[in-house]
């Protein structure tokens, strides 16, 4: 088990290097740089602007700059934002709790909506209610987050005036709309996964065995069926949670929510390479770690997976 965890964490290294290199190159190859953003509108001559560029070290070759960045990163130094001159780590981690809050809240919306709906659909396969549930789930997937967010805003903030329009507040109410918008987007996939996983399990003979034992129907579904259907559901929910930890940039923009997604978008718009790179690397790391946790959870859900880990450990 530990061998596996260490292996997975070591695999993070190439992923982080790859991600940072990609972002670093794209940011540098795209038109304009951070100097043109800073000096925009300022009354400066071309020579002066060039001097700023020289001073910031932006005229050196790309690979040299990337090497320097990577070396700093390996020591835990993610550099400073070129715009605000604050450390990237500090900027990221002041925003990160808000993103975690949103990710967890939206995952709760996701789980609460999709698992009961998926179970219901599977148990009434082919019925009108099943089809209706599937259409509802498909709608969740098809509606773009920015549109759904705006529509919810129109309904609950403008017309009904129940909830605040922005997610920046610290009270519970302000997180509801962003979480619901994000949760509905996730729900479509989870519902479908739950439904198909349950359909698979509901046909199994051991459910009949459980009924023959005299286990009440509710327990047959929740204990035997759901537990056996859990792996694909866990994978889907986990992947979505990991994605959400990276920040839902669009939703954060729509609700002016102060998370890392918005931080990243702003960094890209400002051509703030250090900040953008730092955000991506940190988000990638967090995503990989969350996925690893999900993988470890499998062992708790399925004794067969645990046995595999145990065997893998014994091999050498």
């Amino acid at each position, binding site marked *: 088990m530990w061998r596996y965890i260490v292996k997975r964490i070591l695999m993070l290294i190439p992923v982080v290097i790859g991600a940072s290199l990609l972002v670093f190159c794209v940011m540098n190859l795209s038109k304009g740089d951070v100097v043109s953003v800073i000096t925009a509108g300022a009354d400066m001559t071309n020579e002066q602007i060039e001097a700023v560029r020289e001073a910031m070290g932006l005229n050196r070759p790309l690979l040299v700059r990337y090497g320097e960045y990577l070396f700093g990163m390996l020591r835990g130094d993610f550099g400073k934002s070129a715009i605000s001159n604050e450390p990237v780590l500090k900027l990221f981690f002041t925003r990160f709790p808000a993103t975690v809050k949103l990710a967890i809240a939206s995952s709760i919306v996701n789980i609460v909506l999709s698992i009961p709906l998926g179970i219901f659909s599977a148990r009434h396969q082919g019925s009108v209610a099943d089809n209706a549930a599937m259409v509802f789930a498909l709608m969740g997937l098809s509606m773009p987050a920015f549109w759904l967010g705006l529509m919810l805003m129109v309904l609950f903030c403008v017309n009904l005036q129940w909830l605040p329009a922005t997610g920046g507040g610290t009270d519970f109410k302000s997180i509801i709309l962003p979480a619901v918008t994000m949760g509905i987007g996730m729900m479509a996939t989870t519902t479908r996964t739950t439904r198909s996983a349950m359909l698979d399990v509901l046909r*199994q*003979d*051991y459910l*009949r*065995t*459980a*009924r*023959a*034992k*005299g*286990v*009440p129907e509710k*327990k047959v579904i929740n204990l*035997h069926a759901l*537990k*056996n259907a859990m792996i694909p559901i866990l994978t889907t929910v986990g992947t979505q949670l990991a994605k959400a930890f990276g920040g839902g940039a669009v939703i954060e923009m729509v609700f002016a929510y102060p998370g890392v997604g918005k931080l990243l978008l702003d960094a890209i718009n400002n051509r703030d390479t250090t900040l953008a790179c730092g955000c991506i690397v940190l988000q990638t790391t967090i995503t990989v770690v969350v996925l690893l946790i999900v993988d470890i959870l499998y062992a708790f*859900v*399925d*004794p*067969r997976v645990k*046995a595999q880990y145990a065997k893998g450990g014994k091999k050498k």
Partner: protein
Amino acid sequence: MGEVLLEVKNLQKYFSTPRGMLHAVDNVSFTIEKGKTLGVVGESGCGKTTCGRTILRLTEPTGGQVLFEGKDVSKYKGRELAHLRRDMQIIFQDPFSSLDPRMSVSQIIAEPIKYNKLLHGKEAIDARVLELMDTVGLSRRMVNSYPHELDGGRRQRVGIARALALNPKFIVCDEPVSALDVSIQAQILNLLDELQDSLGLTYMFITHDLAVVNHFADDIAVMYLGQLVEKAPAEELFDNPLHPYTKALLSAIPVPDTHAKNKRIVLKGEITSPINPGEECRFAKRCLYADDCCKGKGPELVEVKPGHFVACHHCGIANQ
């Protein structure tokens, strides 16, 4: 004649299909005496398994009655139905798919005890689980194993132990050995035999293996397309089969003698569809003796000798 434990009267189970009603079990009636074994034989898809499951109410009967110790259990609901599980149990055909892969052996065996509240307290339940494992010949060290770690024979022993956990009086054995290899089949059959003697169990033994049923059953019922065509004590049925289908079935048993004359009756003709079958005898299309009489109303099950029932208009002719 001993005390009747189970009486099935005109049991029906129809399934609705896009093409009409599928008559899986149609007007099946029989009785089983206490401590005896009724073997149920017939080809695949003839409704043996459905019949067993319907008696246990694992599928709801369409019509008819199931009298267990004189009480009609076919209308039981809720708590009564839960109590029925204590008296009637089933051993399933496939030990590979009928055990929940997420549960350890002890959890599988303890579950019925827990939900039927037979015993209280972890210690009492654990002790009972070990006792049951001893009863079915499962080594105690497997108590925390998971089904995927066991071979077929051991899994089937787990299936038997969990059926015995509720101290049932009646067990439907739904082809309990057909998924196992031959050497293990014998072990499991002997185990079932011993359990019957020691616990006084009554079995309904569903199988398509005629050699097994001859060894095992007191009475044998032959099913064809959802109907009971013949029922007789085992010896009588093997010595003196009356229904043409039973004769064909028995002639298919391989004889371990190279000089024996091959007298196998090979059935020809089209199998009647079980979906919306007509009134006529369902075997008529494949029967060697069928005539116009068979196209009328189907034959009733009649007692031709004490304990020997047959449903055929021509059992006199077929007998010659």
